[in-house]
């Protein structure tokens, strides 16, 4: 399992200081989230798309991610138009679809995609380790940063463990069906995964203690602000500021 597929590359976004990334992306996401109507979200989507183009990440992989996000949004397209008051566009039986409903769900779609694209272009282009590192510099609580980092680091170990267990099931001719045997087996699988990961976490903690761990992660590399970092910060904050003015 590869979780950092966008982090490989050498574009402007890959070189940006992760600290600047966090400082700009969070307010940017926030203003998009509180926008109303469709014009604002549409312009934000265009800006996010521009970022994606500049980050030169694989279009194919990006589409894969977007499909996942938009599958959830598709469900909204089924329900919201019929449950929103306003002018009726058409009706199926007693269900009335309204124009306002359609505009509302369109706004959500534009906003969601704008946020996802910006997050991938800005945060996705850094390795998780550097993001965690940046969070430490931004004075986030150590414990939260560790949690975030270990969650990332061991999700792949967990996944391996899961594949191993699943293989063990498959070689003994296990085929999932809709019966008690299948449910019980899956319950065992999940239980086993929990127990194993708990035990592993204990062993890892011991190994860290043996190497003098005292609750802090020492960092070897330090970040340096470049001119382009400051330029990016200025551009992003100008955009955010304009949006805030429009929102007010």
């Amino acid at each position, binding site marked *: 399992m590869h979780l950092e597929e966008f982090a490989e590359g050498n574009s402007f976004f890959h070189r940006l200081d992760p600290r600047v990334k966090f400082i700009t992306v969070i307010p940017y996401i926030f203003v998009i989230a509180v926008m109303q109507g469709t014009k604002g979200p549409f312009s934000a989507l265009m800006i996010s798309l521009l970022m994606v183009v500049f980050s030169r990440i694989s279009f194919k992989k990006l589409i894969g991610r977007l499909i996942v996000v938009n599958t959830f949004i598709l469900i909204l397209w089924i329900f919201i138009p019929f449950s929103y008051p306003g002018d009726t566009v058409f009706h199926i039986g007693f269900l009335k679809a309204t124009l306002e409903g359609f505009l509302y769900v369109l706004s959500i779609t534009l906003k969601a995609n704008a946020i996802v694209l910006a997050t991938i272009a800005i945060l996705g282009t850094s*390795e*998780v*380790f550097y993001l965690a590192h940046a969070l430490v510099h931004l004075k986030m609580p150590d414990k939260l940063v560790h949690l975030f980092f*270990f969650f990332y*680091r061991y999700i*792949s*170990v967990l996944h391996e463990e899961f594949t191993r267990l699943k293989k063990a099931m498959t070689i003994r001719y296990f085929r999932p069906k809709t019966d008690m045997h299948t449910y019980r087996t899956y319950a065992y699988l999940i239980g086993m995964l929990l127990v194993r990961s708990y035990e*592993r976490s204990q*062993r*890892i903690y*011991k*190994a*860290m*203690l*043996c*190497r*003098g*761990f*005292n609750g802090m992660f*020492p960092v*070897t590399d330090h970040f340096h602000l470049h001119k382009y970092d400051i330029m990016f910060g200025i551009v992003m904050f100008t955009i955010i500021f304009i949006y805030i003015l429009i929102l007010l």
Partner: protein
Amino acid sequence: MTTSHMGNIVEIKNLNFSYQNGRKVLDDLSFSLNKGERVGITGPNGAGKTTLFHLVMGLLYPDSGEIRVFGKPRNYEKDFSEVRKKIGLLFQDSDDQLFSPTVEEDIAFGPLNLGKSHEETKAIVRYTCEQLGLKGYEKKITHRLSGGEKRLVALATVVAMQPECFLLDEPVTGLDETTTERFLKYLKEHADTYAIITHDREFLKDTVDKIYVLKNSKITAI
């Protein structure tokens, strides 16, 4: 490296230890490891070999008995920080030992915790990689290495702390001949005090001067 205390690195007297489920694994056990000694510990599965190492490192605490390391009694968590600085424990499963994203970061973790500067640490990482034939591995992602490579990197993380004594828990189980050779070569040339847990009697013949068997809660020299 010279040490201020007399010969004994590890000295254990009348140690008792039971698992949480009540099963007694160590019963009135006494054991010592002197400076310059190279010993092997063998015995059936579940006999408490790993437990013994973990007790020495303060990862587990005994029910009763005395653990002295570097001449001082070690009873509480704070007593063990010095032990962990000077004794290097290699875990059975390298996946437990390696948790940083890259080889370089993982090797640097220990020295940085010891308070070494970034420059010193970089030099240690480079030197350690050279010693273990891991040159060019610095930027590799730890969890994508092969089993043998992981074991060598795990050893590197321990070596980087420049311990006075090694505790090696089944270091060559599952390794191929070439990797085992590399492991052996390092031990012979650079380590003067160590205890090895293994089932491999042939490997022990080449690496240690003295063999202990841990069986039925007792340890005996053969």
